[in-house]
């Protein structure tokens, strides 16, 4: 029980009469990297939002780090959202956004001490040069890095990433995966990452959750990416999965 990071039991979420998640039961061990893969509208983001406490499930229970969601501290979870819902007209600097990761509130005047930590973290994700540009002038990929810095800076036990590599250039994508892997091993953190990039799921994850309203399979990548499971998740896939995974696993 103690080595379980997230435990879902018979979890269902309905939007009006539409079922987004159906009877999910799942245990995610601490310190593992889980990739969630599934078609658009499969309920991937919905599942993350349930874990974050943004959506209340209609049925079932969630236990995170042995606690109920309301008992959990905001600092236990780091989150990079898929769709950035920020107000683009809001006057803000990247350092301010990242500082919300540190303090869980919007900063007035940033303390020198906090500012240094923020700038270090931005440098770590390759965004040190962005620190004082207006936030609303950043490109999609730049913004994504700032959000990653915001998630990492609080050193969460659980890192929740919704398509974190979207909009990041090819070299940057390798960088980001390296940063996430390093963070995971340094803090023995649990990482949950939604991705449409099967290859990165295959190479980085300890477990893959194939999701399409129901959990089709939760297993090691080698077993999860079987043609059978994939066609159950996505309907008929056009190509053989062997073509996709010609590379070998890392480490």
């Amino acid at each position: 029980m103690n080595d379980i990071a997230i435990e879902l039991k018979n979890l269902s979420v309905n939007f009006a009469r539409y079922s987004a998640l159906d009877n999910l039961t799942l245990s995610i061990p601490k310190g593992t990297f889980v990739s969630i893969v599934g078609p658009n509208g499969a309920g991937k983001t919905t599942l993350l939002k349930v874990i974050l406490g943004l959506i209340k499930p209609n049925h079932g229970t969630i236990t995170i780090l042995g606690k109920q969601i309301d008992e959990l501290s905001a600092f236990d979870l780091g989150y990079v959202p898929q769709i950035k819902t920020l107000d683009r007209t809001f006057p803000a600097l990247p350092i301010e956004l990242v500082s919300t990761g540190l303090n869980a509130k919007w900063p007035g005047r940033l303390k020198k001490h906090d500012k240094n930590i923020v700038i270090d973290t931005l440098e770590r994700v390759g965004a040190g040069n962005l620190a004082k540009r207006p936030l609303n002038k950043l490109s999609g990929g730049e913004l994504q890095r700032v959000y990653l810095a915001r998630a990492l800076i609080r050193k969460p036990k659980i890192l929740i990433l919704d398509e974190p590599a979207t909009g990041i250039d090819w070299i940057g994508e390798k960088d980001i995966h390296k940063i996430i892997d390093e963070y995971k091993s340094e803090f023995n953190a649990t990482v949950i990452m939604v991705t449409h990039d099967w290859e990165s799921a295959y190479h980085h994850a300890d477990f893959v959750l194939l999701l399409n309203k129901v959990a089709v399979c939760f297993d090691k990548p080698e077993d999860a990416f079987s043609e059978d499971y994939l066609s159950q998740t996505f309907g008929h896939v056009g190509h053989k999965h062997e073509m996709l995974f010609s590379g070998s696993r890392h480490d």
Partner: protein
Amino acid sequence: MIDVFLQTFMLRAMLAGILVGFMSSYFGVFIVQRRMSFMGSGLAHAAFGGVALGILLNTEPLWIAIPFTILASIGITLLRDKTKLGSDTSIGILFAISVALGIIFLSLKRSYTADAFAYLFGSILSVQTSDLYVTLILSVITMLSFFGFWSRWAYTSFDRELAGTDRIKVTRDDYILNTLLAITIVVSVKLVGIILVAAFLVIPAASARLVAGTFFRMTIISIILGVISSIIGLIASYIFDLPSGATIILVQAAIFFISILIRRITIRESL
């Protein structure tokens, strides 16, 4: 004798002007960022309904207008949250109900309704000691909200969902903000009038938005501009014998255009 009268009444108006200018320009930054200026207008018209009821009941309109306007603000927020209607639609509906009620209340009164006109266009002559007390208490609460609430309201204005993931009770905070906003509007109405109150709330914050790079600076600059424009406006209205509300708004507008110029110059320089 007349001198003393002038002095105390001018002092009262000036104090009220400074406090009301402070509160409106402080809440104004949230109104601007949350695109709620129609809410300001809607609550001002709700205040009209409350004032009219107060006049009909022959009591101090303030004591009726405050709960009336708070109820309207709760009603607007509830309608927005519980139905799929946009907040502009909810405001539009409550707006019309309040004004319709106000007109009927005033027509029932049948006597001279000069009071109501003072509320429509604002008048420093109408600022009473009781207004001053309410304004003073509200100012203290507003200042206290700077510690604690400001950063949560700011966070929620920036990104409601992200603030939610940081366990901020965004809905509860909305009700608190809208309630304080409702009272601020009622006490501002005496000075600037129902028609101009929405602009009074928004112009200093909009000017500050043009020149500030962070929300904290925007808040500070907005407050400074709000207080200064109230002082200059009141002095000008006294010297030239002009209506106070309209004069303050024109001073604010002048500052707004200066802010546009400053922004153009600084952008050109940074290129």
